């Protein structure tokens, strides 16, 4: 797909430049153009949160954001966290607490979780649940996800 608009993006610390159509969604740019298929598309209308990435320090729905809107920005995706043999602490907590089943919502949950852990006190499980309420999971019933984030809050706060 081309269309004359040049987009420059730093994704997980690597600079990319590409010519895109103005209507190209950020999530399609990441998945198709850059081959970063860890970010998933679940609804294309901003409800399910599977496509959540961090853009310039804030979590966003990459299905509601055009690639050209992100021009000049810095994007963090799940591929920028840990590796299979060296998981990031939040990924490790998800594994330890069985916070994923089919794994489809997981990248969005992780990026939302990272954003919450950076910015929110998350003093109660109610706050964690409110923070996660923009991300749907159909498998886990959320309990183990809340537990994984709770453990990460405790590790963060040195409890």
């Amino acid at each position, binding site marked *: 797909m081309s269309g004359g608009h040049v987009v420059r993006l730093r994704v997980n610390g690597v600079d990319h430049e590409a010519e895109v159509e103005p209507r190209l969604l950020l999530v399609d740019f990441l998945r198709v153009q850059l081959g970063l298929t860890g970010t998933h598309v679940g609804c294309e209308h901003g409800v399910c949160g599977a496509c959540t990435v961090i853009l310039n320090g804030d979590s966003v729905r990459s299905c509601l954001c055009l690639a050209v809107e992100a021009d000049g920005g810095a994007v963090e995706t799940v591929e920028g966290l840990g590796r299979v043999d060296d998981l990031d602490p939040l990924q490790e907590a998800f594994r330890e607490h069985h916070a994923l089943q089919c794994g489809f919502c997981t990248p969005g949950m992780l990026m939302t979780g990272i954003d919450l852990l950076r910015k929110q006190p998350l003093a109660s499980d109610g706050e964690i649940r409110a923070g996660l309420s923009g991300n749907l999971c159909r498998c886990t*019933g959320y309990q183990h996800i809340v537990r994984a984030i709770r453990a990460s809050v405790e590790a963060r706060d040195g409890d």
Partner: protein
Amino acid sequence: MEIEVRPGLIGARVQRLEDPRLLTGHGTYVDDLQLPGTLHLAFRRSDHGHARIIAIDTEEAAAMPGVAAVVTAADIADGVKPYRATSRMPDYHPTTLPVLAADKVRYVGEPVVAVLAENRYLAEDAAEQVAIDYDPLPTVIDPEAAAQPGAPVLHEEIGSNVILSRSFSRGDVEAALAGAPVRVAGRFRMHRKTPAAMENRAYLADYDQGRRALTLYSSTQVPGIVRDSLAEILDIPGNRLRVIAPDVGGGFGGKTPLYGEEVLVCHLARKLGRPVKWCADRLEDLTTTSQAFDEIVEAELACDGDGTILGLRAEVIGDIGAYSIYPYTAALEPVQVISFLPGPYRVPSYHGAVKGVATSKALTGAYRGVGRPISTFAMERLVDMAARELSLDPLEMRRRNMVRAEEFPYKTPVGLVWDRAGFMECLDGAAAAADYDGLRAEQARARADGRWFGIGLASYAELTGLGSRISAAPGMPVNTGTETASIRIDATGAVTAAFGIASHGQGLETTLAQVVAEELGVRVEDVEVVHGDSDAVAHSTGTYASRSTILAGGAATLSARALRQQVVEAAAHLLEAAQADIEVADGAIRVAGTDRAMSFPELAKAVFVEMGRLPRELREQVDLQVTKTYDPYFGTTAPATHLAVVEIDPETYRVAIRRYVVAEDCGRIINPMIADGQVHGGVAQGIGAALYEEVVYDDEGQILTASLVDYLVPTAAEIPEMEVLHLEIETEANIGGFRGLGEGGTIGAPAALANAVTDALAPLGIDIDELPVTPDRLFRLIREANKDEN
């Protein structure tokens, strides 16, 4: 003799082997596969509930940039055989399933025209330019009206919308009702639901012209069934047709049918010689993935003066949607409702009758729990209503009627057999865990304060891990009762275990590795589990119906035991010891009480490479690969009791769940962490069915819940903490002693919540007989109750 006690792998909280790839974005779902030269498919779908197709104009679409082909029903008639779900069941009428609608459309979302283009954006652009001229026909929306003579008919060749009828009877229910001191009756309605897996359906077909071989990558739960079906429909032998379900983002039953889109991508890839991909968007998922739980149950329960159940009578109407789903048939859910309605109780006389009625809506099919969420909702409401008539506590009412330990095996009124399972243990376990008496005292205080505080119980039993004697759907010509495991130690000494199941969240790569590792004597991480691939074993179906642990676990046990025997035979010769002295554990082979040992790679080398180390006759006997098939023949009973405590906000009518307790008997647990997760997820979907989720069609057949803004999947803010009590009651119904637990959560929760909300509103005399019980429905019920009072 000293017995070495080694902690067992079965029952251990083993970390999931599939997690690292899924956590790092390295899972591979169908849409993640990008093959060079792929054409992308988009559909122009029916926007009418029922209409005749007069004309289709594809000229403008075909001329759009990047468009490779525009395809209608007429264009595919030469390569796609018509198919329909057949059954040996009497009083059942199959319906032919069009891949693309030819003469008529029967629901909004039905595919009519397919557009292939260089990318999805261009394909959708062109699909919009297709012009279809329709002659609208009267829709049939209300299933009861649709069943009446004179209603507009969807399938003219059948002549009626009643696609199936069935009934079960035991004893003289009329006499039991006539003479009963207590009779309670209700009309229970559960509204249509959709599985809403987070990954939408996605298919990618790749045709190898040189080999004339087709590979379909499909987000299916049943690659084996899809392969076998496509072989017939497309006339390709199974050795040149492979169906792979890679990582699949949830299914919950919605990915168990064969879909027309799967047939079409295969046909077009073969015809055009290029890979063809289609990924549903959420609109397509909500309008075309199989839906469920759409039944009306009119039922009456008769009891003796002490609460003993005397008889149960029910008439059920199932709204099956526009076609009978392939291959399970539309009978799958409605018949299950009358099969399981008597629940875990002694019901001496019973009559249950069901009709499945076609309507101008999306097809219904399997969804987590299949029929039993509705049957449990109706029966558990009746049990509570009877308890109220008798001024008995609901807990006591259940104790008096539940099948007792000494009564197993117990034959239910429809001929199913409950084997020994923890019916009463679950009831008592849930009551004890929740401190039932304490909760009643708390309720009394809350009521004194004028608060709407309710406690609801729901008990049920299901039949899991069905063997070959019991069909997953009545009369269906597909065997779902066996499972094969093929385990081998290759020339490098590595262990691969191949299965016909298709894990899509259940963690079977881990739990089956635990079973193989335990039985073979290796470490869990040494076992590579292959699944979700029709080439893995000769015959397979997939993962559904709470079957995989029991069936694949059984096949794994049989195969691994036979393979271990081969290892022992070879090692005894190589280590010059008696077979009885060979120990295999943690991937090492030892002679007991000595320092003589060898590794699996050393063994494999001796067997496969270093000729001369084994005598010729032993080499032919020991090839380090075993394939065994397991058939549990009947099924295994899995009971549970759910207990919900709710409080209703008197201003917003929001139902807040204060406590949620599940006591369930899942037999021997392989991995407690995964068992918890299965229950949590099932309960969350049951809470959705009880309080939030509803597919709504208007009178014209337009679907009003075609986005996740309108179709409410519960979030972390709505789902409470759950307390789960696993009771591991022994069973001999299958080789591993396992019981299925994938669906149970969804079966118990709607009933428990309906009873809890009814209990909360007891001061107003409101009975919940319709689910989901949304704030809107509660508002109307409470307003009506207050009107009656004034």
